[in-house]
């Protein structure tokens, strides 16, 4: 383990930025947001960012391919480019796990090369949460905010930041900043972890369990009469899907630029009525069906296809942002009862 005085953080970001873009949580009017570091940027002390870190590997919109149309003829232009190296600094344990979940979707065959490109060029430097809040329930999904995953894990304790590499990529990254770090013992970090775990035990959602969910409960849960009441007030706004670090559904659309066509991908939401609408009909006509799809996907379908891993990381963003205060915690509690 190695450490750095928090007073030298600016110097560290400056050094890192010489080699690659560094993104870190920065305080904004409405909460923290990931931003590229430039001289004067300060790292936010907020528990988490309003939006998740998924934009870095799965951006809200991206071009897939270009076309030139000339009379009856079409030209296809592969515009993919090798991505530049970048660092995401200060990601939390929940977001780090969400990358593993997105990997299962995008890196399974056939590999999504747009995603893979960014994933390979990004170094994830995670930061242990010092003040998990009452909307946090990452522990429900086996995530420990005191031991965040990622290429490098960091902790802040007593005015110092502690670093530990978890992967080869992480080791290379630590080497690149090693002249700023000094070796140290793990005592301070161990004490910090104990403190975080103590907070976790006292959180109101500490007892939320997943026992009632998983692939083997598929039809039983799908046919539950409780979906009607749970979904009754859903506005179908899709906010939950957009702030969610694991929501991966996307749309593919064409934009005619006048001198060519750009085919792009953008986030979509299973909460929207046109998500499954076809010329001849819609397989999910009601908001009940769309609402049920979202939660069944995270709690039943995804684990059924991915060795029991749930499609939620307990970050609590949907709890904080839903305009009618409906969320996955309420759904889980209602369905298990």
């Amino acid at each position, binding site marked *: 383990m190695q450490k750095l005085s928090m007073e030298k953080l600016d110097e560290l970001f400056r050094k890192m930025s010489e080699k690659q873009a560094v993104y870190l949580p920065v305080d904004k009017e409405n909460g923290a947001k990931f931003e590229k570091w430039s001289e004067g940027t300060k790292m936010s002390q907020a528990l988490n960012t309003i939006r998740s870190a998924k934009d870095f590997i799965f951006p809200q919109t991206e071009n897939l391919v270009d076309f030139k149309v000339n009379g009856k003829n079409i030209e296809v232009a592969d515009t993919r480019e090798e991505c530049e190296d970048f660092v995401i600094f200060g990601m939390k344990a929940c977001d780090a796990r969400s990358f593993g979940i997105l990997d299962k979707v995008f890196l399974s065959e056939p590999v*999504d090369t747009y995603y893979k490109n960014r994933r390979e060029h990004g170094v994830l430097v995670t930061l242990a949460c010092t003040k998990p809040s009452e909307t946090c329930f990452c522990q429900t999904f086996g995530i420990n905010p005191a031991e965040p995953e990622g290429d490098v894990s960091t902790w802040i304790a007593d005015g110092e930041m502690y670093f530990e590499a978890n992967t080869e990529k992480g080791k290379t990254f630590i080497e690149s900043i090693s002249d700023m770090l000094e070796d140290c013992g793990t005592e301070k970090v161990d004490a910090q972890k104990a403190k975080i775990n103590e907070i976790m035990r006292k959180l109101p959602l500490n007892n939320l369990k997943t026992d009632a969910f998983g*692939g083997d409960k598929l039809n039983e849960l799908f046919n539950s009469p409780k979906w009607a009441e749970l979904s009754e007030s859903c506005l179908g706004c899709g906010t939950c899907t957009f702030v969610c670090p694991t929501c991966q559904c996307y749309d*593919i659309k064409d934009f*005619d630029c006048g001198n060519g066509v750009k085919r792009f*991908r953008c986030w979509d939401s299973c909460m929207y009525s046109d998500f*499954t609408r*076809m010329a001849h009909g819609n*397989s999910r006509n009601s908001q009940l069906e769309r609402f049920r799809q979202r939660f069944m*996907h995270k709690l039943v379908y995804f684990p059924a296809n991915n060795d029991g891993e749930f499609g939620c990381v307990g970050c609590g963003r949907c709890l904080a942002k839903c305009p009618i205060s409906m969320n996955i915690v309420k759904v889980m509690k209602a369905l298990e009862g």
Partner: protein
Amino acid sequence: MTNETLIPKIGVVTDIRIDTPDVKTFRVVTPDGKKAFDHMPGQCAMLSIPGVGEAMFSITSSPTNTEYMEFSIKKCGCLTSWLHQMEVGQQITIRGPYGNNFPVETDLKGKDLLFIAGGIGLAPLRSVINYVRDKRENYGSIQIIYGSRSKDDLVDYDEIISEWMADEGIEVNLTIDREQEGWDGHVGFVPNYVKELNPDISKTVLICGPPIMIKFTLGALKELGFEETQVFTTMELRMKCGVGKCGRCNIGNKYVCKDGPVFRYDKLGELPDEY
């Protein structure tokens, strides 16, 4: 960079056949005149017109056709209306093949086969029918029950009359919904016709058509004594990626684009009723 499935190839439309007032069959090859890729009966391809849209279509030609692919497309939305306006020589984009296939080399081998289709539902089955006709020695008897609204709405009518009906060992039973001048064949809905024909219950059934037709035909088959394990069907839901990632064509935890489109009926029955 490695191959990306979302980046399509160019296809050229080399022939357009008008099947019915709202169905046309398009022949597609690459710009150098070859088949765009190999496939198995029941698999699909994403076709698009840049700037208009992209959608999944079943490949109606048989894999045994090594020269080109065919798609029978019903005009019913934005993209399909555009495709129907095309002239020979038009380029489109194509990517695939996607999905699983009818188990022609496993479960169907050596079996007596019963094909049941309604309307444009013949399109995916035509691929299997012609595959089986070309590898006749591997399969038992073939019976095809096909129905449409009217005589004019029977897809592939010429091929049915001049090729399928001319083949030895193939029984073709056509029906249309209502009486029509110039039609002396059977009149009535497919499910009832299946009951009337009373096919041998040892046959393996491949069925495709409008959901309501499939539902009632399945009921008829069960009445006759068929088991769900003998029946295969092919599904269609909205798709964007074709590879199980865009998240919309699932029925329960199965993606129609990747785990389907072909499902054995008992397996489909284990999934939630949401299609």
